[in-house]
């Protein structure tokens, strides 16, 4: 089985996010970019399938801040090949519709059975990647996937349908899947192995030129949400004092 994993970089949500001067994007200059956590789950699922079925795993990502680190880490974890897509400004917000177009352009020149990507990313204003990519490639697709079992011509997927209900279906290959969770937590690559990958591995590059611009919504502005004013009463003091207050609140409800 030939598996392609589409990964991407995303602003670290732990950081303070500032809005850019024109008000329509985040200020990307001082933000730390990390690999999208759901894409890490997609990579893990691909590597697990490789362990089970003997698949080859290609990881593809658009050129974005610190993406080389993510690609070398993928090699260190067991990916066979990594490719960086160029041809766009790496320091701007490439929205999910355009991202899908760029990936689709690359994939039309590839042989693959399965494309895995994260179920979503925190800036997917224009929709989630798997569905858009599946539609552009005219391939069956499914998202919110928590289980993948492969065979030669079909893939059996388990999807969350809300309220704990799971749906199991079988899709023809090739197919595109948006992974919510892998069978196991994403594996860890030690720094020493990533360094080794940086010395011995190679990031392939592929330039994408789009003939059509993506159909996407027009952003007027980004802004931080106003506090509703209904926020929490903040408890102050040492851990001991705050703990005592919390226990008092719980006791007042007749609990503990």
């Amino acid at each position, binding site marked *: 089985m030939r598996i392609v994993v589409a990964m991407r970089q995303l*602003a670290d*949500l732990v950081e*303070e*996010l500032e809005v850019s001067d024109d008000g329509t994007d*985040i200020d990307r200059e001082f933000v730390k970019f990390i690999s999208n956590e759901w894409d890490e789950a997609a990579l893990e699922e691909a590597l697990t399938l490789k362990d089970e079925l003997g698949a080859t795993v290609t990881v593809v990502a658009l050129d974005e801040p610190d993406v080389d680190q993510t690609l070398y880490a993928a090699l260190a974890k067991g990916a066979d090949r990594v490719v960086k897509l160029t041809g766009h400004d790496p320091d701007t917000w490439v929205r999910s*519709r355009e991202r*899908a177009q760029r990936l689709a352009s690359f994939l039309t020149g590839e042989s693959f059975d399965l494309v895995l990507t994260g179920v*979503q990313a*925190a*800036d*997917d*204003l*224009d*929709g*989630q990647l798997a*569905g858009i990519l599946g*539609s552009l490639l005219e*391939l*069956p697709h499914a998202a919110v996937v928590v289980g993948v079992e492969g065979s030669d011509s079909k893939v059996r997927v*388990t*999807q*969350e*349908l*809300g*309220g*704990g*209900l*799971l749906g*199991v*279906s*079988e*899709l*023809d290959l090739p197919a595109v899947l*948006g992974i*919510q969770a892998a069978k*196991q*937590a994403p594996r860890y690559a030690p720094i020493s192995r990533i360094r080794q990958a940086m010395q011995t591995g190679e990031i392939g590059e592929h330039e994408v030129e789009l003939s059509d611009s993506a*159909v*996407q*919504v*027009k952003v007027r*502005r*980004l*802004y931080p*949400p106003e506090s509703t004013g209904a*926020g*929490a*009463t*903040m*408890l102050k003091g040492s*851990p*001991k004092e*705050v*703990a005592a207050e*919390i226990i008092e*609140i*719980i006791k007042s*409800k007749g*609990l*503990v």
Partner: protein
Amino acid sequence: MSVDVLVIAEAVAGEVLDVTYELLGKGRELSDGFSGELGAVLIGEPSPQDLFGAADVLYSMSGMEAGYCAPQWEMALGEVLRSADPKVVLVSTGTVGIDLAGALATQFGGVLASYVIDAVMEEGSLVVTSQLYGGKLLSEVEIDSFPAVLSVLPGSFVSDAGRVAGEPRREVIDVGGSVSSAKGVAIELREPDSSGVDITAAPLLVSVGRGIGSKENVELVAELAEAMKAPLSASRPVIDQGWLPKPHQVGKSGKKVKPTVYLAFGISGAPEHLEGMRSADVIIACNTDAKAPIFEVAHYGTTLDLFDLVPELTDQVGG
């Protein structure tokens, strides 16, 4: 006959979801803005207690196969969209929204806005607000080319506005041909795992999120839960990492809980989590990020490090 706004209704285990009524209420408002009709489509047959009176027309499908299979649903909904020819499609950011909205919008050459929390008509344009970056930023977008698909976060609108009795016109669309050519089949539906802990019945819940950092650290909060004789629950990242089993999950795809007191440690408050616990009588949140969205719904909060606070709580409860 076409409609201006179409709501894709969702039902789980035969029960129409609350968010569908939210969409019907907002859909009525938007279709009035267009001076047009509101349609709703439900995959499967509505039951007598389902309230679709806010809609002018209710589409149903013939030839639809049982169970959920994304390619089949996409093709079936595509047939309905071709027939209803709506300007705006409203779906929830649940299964259909995350799974199919992007594909449907792409198929029909329309735009899509995800994580929508508000939508209003302004001089012929649709102005839509979305929640990005886990709720840290909002985006305001303008849509003046249609069709447009809006994937709406549950809890964004009032469901009572859409919960209207009445008898909309019925239109049946034969989707059998499309569905039979879909590149996928449904195999089975699996009920939620109800073994082990029941977090829905407890009056006190001790809940842990991503801030706990590792599986080993979960033990710290488990000790507090044990000392408080309360079940341990968790937000999605903890479950996805395999640090706790699925029956412990609070949120959209986990359990909805309504305890008297909900203690949240290291939980930032993603919309999917808030949907599952915001009805608790008292929410007490501990998160080092003072701007974490959980503080908007919590009644009490602290920015102390949970690794300092939790052992202190355990000591005091035990003592």
